[in-house]
């Protein structure tokens, strides 16, 4: 039980600290809203079926059913991979070491932070979904709820990876280019702006390596009203699998005494 209370303790502390300087959170959600406002309208003029591989009706509702899940994953990708920056400055301030010498579970130092990131992402996502609705998104409520499940899993995996990598590297100068060189190709290969099916065969082949591609596809299925098919099963398995593996890897880094 102490692991849970330790996690909640770290969560509360981290939440308090981030709410004190919320700029990062606000900027994080403003960026996808800009995409929604300035890029989304381009998609509404596409011929019917372009975005959904032939079955869609086209028009505004179809465009946003396609685009909002992509933006949600983009929000999660950027938001969660950059959390590592904060832990580098916390490490430099000696805070990580201070807590590593207390009886607090060392894994809770990770899970409490990840929980904070999950909660803030859920709030940011809600803002983004509401903005999407304002622009013309119409999707079943079940699909919206299901997208939270995917977002939470993505955030757990990526935030764990980000914290663990940052704690190993311990330098913002090295961490920033590393994150960029991982996130940008992942975003491009996940079909956030346009469906990967529009691309040539070789590009579709490469895109198979991005786990987020499967997750976005599954979310889009749900937004189109399809809750149970092979794409959904694939998406769920990939989401759960990546979250579990990355959380486990992150915990290893936090537990080891060798940092």
């Amino acid at each position, binding site marked *: 039980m102490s692991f849970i209370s330790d996690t909640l303790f770290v969560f509360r502390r981290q939440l308090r600290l981030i709410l004190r300087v919320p700029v990062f959170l606000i900027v994080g959600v403003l960026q996808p809203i800009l995409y929604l406002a300035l890029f989304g309208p381009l998609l509404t003029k596409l011929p019917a079926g372009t975005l959904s591989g032939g079955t869609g009706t086209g028009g505004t509702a179809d465009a946003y059913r396609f685009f909002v899940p992509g933006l949600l994953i983009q929000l999660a990708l950027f938001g969660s991979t950059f959390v590592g920056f904060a832990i580098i400055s916390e490490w430099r301030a000696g805070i990580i070491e201070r807590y590593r*010498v207390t009886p607090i579970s060392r894994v809770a130092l990770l899970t409490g932070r990840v929980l904070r990131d999950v909660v803030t992402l859920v709030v940011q996502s809600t803002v983004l979904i509401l903005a999407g609705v304002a622009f013309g998104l119409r999707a079943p409520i079940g699909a919206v709820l299901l997208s939270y499940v995917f977002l939470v899993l993505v955030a757990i995996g990526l935030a764990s990876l980000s914290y663990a990598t940052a704690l190993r590297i311990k330098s913002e100068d090295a961490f920033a280019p590393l994150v960029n060189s991982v996130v940008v190709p992942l975003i491009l290969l996940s079909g956030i702006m346009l469906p990967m099916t529009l691309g040539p065969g070789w590009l579709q082949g490469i895109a198979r390596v991005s786990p987020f591609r499967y997750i976005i596809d599954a979310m889009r299925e749900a937004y189109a009203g399809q809750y149970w098919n092979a794409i959904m099963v694939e998406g769920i398995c990939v989401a759960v699998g990546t979250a579990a593996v990355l959380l486990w890897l992150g915990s290893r880094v936090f537990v080891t005494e060798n940092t």
Partner: protein
Amino acid sequence: MAIIEARGLARDFTSRKRTVHAVRGVDLTVEEGEIVGFLGPNGAGKTTTLRMLTTLLRPTAGTAVVAGADLLRDPLGVRKRIGFVPQAIGQTQGGTSDNSLVIEELLDQGTAYRIGREETRRRAAALIEQLDLGGLDQRYVKTLSGGQRRRLEIALGLVHQPPLVFLDEPTTGLDPQSRSNMWEHIRRLRSELGTTVFLTTHYLDEADALCDRLFVIDHGVTVAVGTPDELKRRISGDVVTLSVNGAAGSDGTAAARSVLVESPVVQEITVSDGVLRLTVEQGEQALPVLLRALDGAGITMSAISLSRPTLDDVFLTLTGRSLRDDSPGGAGNSTDGGPELAGVAGATGKE
């Protein structure tokens, strides 16, 4: 009962096929209620040893019992019973968050040690009082002065009232007034709470003024152990400087010299400009003997002074380098003592 008992504690770091022996084998015995200083130049292995004793780093060899718990088998037990104040300057800072309030840091620390809210509040109030942090509890940490912030960091290490507290360079970076103020607080820890204090420092005056006993470490091994006085005594004798009255000067001085040279406590005499410099084994005990001898010979003195070798002299003798100038390659906590090792081995044998 010893509160720290370490035997052969060692730590290697391996990177790119190159192994660095940061700590080669440190033995420590610290008794309850002592203020012990861990002294050494940058890169000697002080911080690495401290990090091993506080469970931040797993030793590659050796054993230790810290505050009654086995370091390797029960690190959690060690963590529950020790306080740790990280160093405030260097790679990492002292462990407080800029955007927290002073009181929040104290309350959080209490929660981390699973102390109830009310009890933590009570202890935080007492610590704020003891460490001169009154009126600052609602201030952001980033608005504190260097000395205030350091005292807060020390307060954080004491919230759970540990029997043993590790202070990593408690006064580095503080101005002289804050330093002597900090020494006062550290002394009170022992006198009022009975806390055993284990501190690292590279200030010799701090070690001299504050510590009951010192461990001198260089190139990853303990090269000397003892009270500051014992260490100084071991290096060279004390120096007595005296001048005597005499009309023509040379007569009185020469007479005094011939009297004193007979005295068993005097090891060496030099005369320059009418002043006698005597090297003696133990200054305090030698002085009365010298006074009696001169008095018996009817010689009166105009001035006498006793000076001790400083810890700096001790350090120079033990390690071959002064603590003040940091050797160019000495930054960080890794040393690769290849050729220097021979010299160190000689000094180790003196234990």
